[in-house]
């Protein structure tokens, strides 16, 4: 196990895992308290279209997926702000169309298509140092934005109507939260894959929410739990030679069950 740490790709995987865990802890908390889990799922699947187009055009996949995810976040923001009663229908539509666009563009691409699976199920072991810079940059910007605008974000998340009465630009902050979610979803995809990204954005956060009495504590705890689950998942995946993304999620789910049992039988 220890000698594994001397490999570059294992080191990168660990660093990426921790960076993404902290980012998804912060953003996941916002997604959960704003009840945007379904929206985040929509963004994740829609951004698959971006991956397909990026592979087809030969541009960096992170860039393609991020751009596509941000555009879909903007569309979802405008739908949720203007057509509240039809949100689920529109998200479902975008979910499917994004996936279809991705599949078609990957079909149109000649040659190697190995990356397809890696984006569905994650490929944390193939993280490059460029990927790490991008993840670090995203994490730092997220922390900065959330710290400097904590009051507004808290206010909009807790009671958006009242926030508007206090002169806060609710639409702006709502869209901002969705854009940050979109960017985080894309990097989290690298770690656990598109299909499992929702689990990473909900399981550690659910546990943290139960243990927190304020939003920032919830964010810190989520980041912490998420990092622990990711590292444990990587160790399990190394020892038993199974897929890393799925290991991380199963470890998280296992810890969640322990937590729920603890809550049910020990606290009550």
């Amino acid at each position: 196990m220890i000698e594994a740490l001397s490999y570059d790709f294992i080191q990168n995987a660990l660093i990426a895992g921790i960076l993404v865990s902290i980012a998804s802890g912060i953003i996941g908390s916002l997604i959960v308290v704003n009840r945007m889990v379904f929206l985040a799922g929509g963004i994740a699947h829609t951004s698959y279209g971006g991956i397909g187009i990026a592979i087809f055009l030969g541009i960096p996949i992170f860039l393609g997926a991020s751009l596509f995810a941000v555009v879909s976040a903007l569309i979802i923001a405008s739908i949720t702000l203007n057509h509240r009663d039809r949100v689920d229908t529109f998200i479902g539509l975008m979910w499917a169309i994004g996936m279809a666009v991705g599949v078609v563009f990957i079909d149109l691409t000649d040659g190697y298509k190995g990356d397809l699976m890696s984006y569905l199920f994650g490929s944390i072991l193939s993280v490059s140092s460029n990927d790490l810079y991008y993840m670090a940059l995203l994490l730092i910007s997220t922390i900065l934005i959330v710290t400097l605008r904590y009051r507004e974000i808290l206010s909009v998340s807790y009671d958006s109507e009242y926030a508007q009465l206090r002169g806060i630009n609710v639409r702006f902050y709502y869209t901002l939260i969705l854009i940050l979610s979109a960017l985080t979803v894309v990097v989290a995809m690298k770690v656990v894959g598109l299909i499992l990204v929702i689990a990473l954005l909900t399981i550690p956060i659910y546990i943290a929410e139960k243990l927190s009495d304020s939003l920032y504590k919830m964010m810190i705890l989520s980041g912490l739990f998420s990092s622990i689950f990711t590292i444990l998942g990587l160790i399990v995946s190394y020892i038993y030679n199974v897929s890393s993304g799925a290991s991380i999620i199963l470890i998280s789910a296992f810890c969640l069950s322990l937590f729920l049992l603890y809550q049910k039988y020990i606290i009550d």
Partner: protein
Amino acid sequence: MGLIPTQKGIIKTFGEKPQKNLSKIGYVPQNTNININFPIKVIEVVLMGHIGTKRPLFGYAKEEISCAMGSLAQVGMENFAHKKIGELSGGQRQRVMIARALCANPKILILDEPTASIDIDGQRKIYQLLKALNREITIIVVSHDISVILGYANKIVHINKRLIYHKLNQQEKERLNMEGHFCEVELFNILKDNSR
């Protein structure tokens, strides 16, 4: 309050557009049971009342916190400042929302059905609190619960297709208190006769 665009007519507060005078109006929404599981402390909810005014780069200024504690003390909730909002009862949460509105030092306090989902004892406490606050600020309460509110209000605007305005004088109030519970239809007949 400027949240919903007017379909007809004009709404003015202090002689201007409502959006211009948001800080002079404290608003307590009808449903205080939203987001009960949200991880937020009572004091943080009250501090939201400040937003829109001057603020430090991050966190809350000392004056803001002491002002928020002051508002909580006004509504008798200062001992709950560091409780999670979901741990309070409906009536306590309502008082916290009143504290949040008071935090901005409003000239008018508007409450929408403040006692809609609260038990009798909680209702009484809220109305006593409003009565006390009423010595300093104007309070407008929207309510269906006519029999209770009549004991505390000094003016009534009754809207049922057309608008009827009553000033309650002391004599009428005393009579209401004596009779205890009464039929609301009867009551409006009495008031109508008086205002003619």
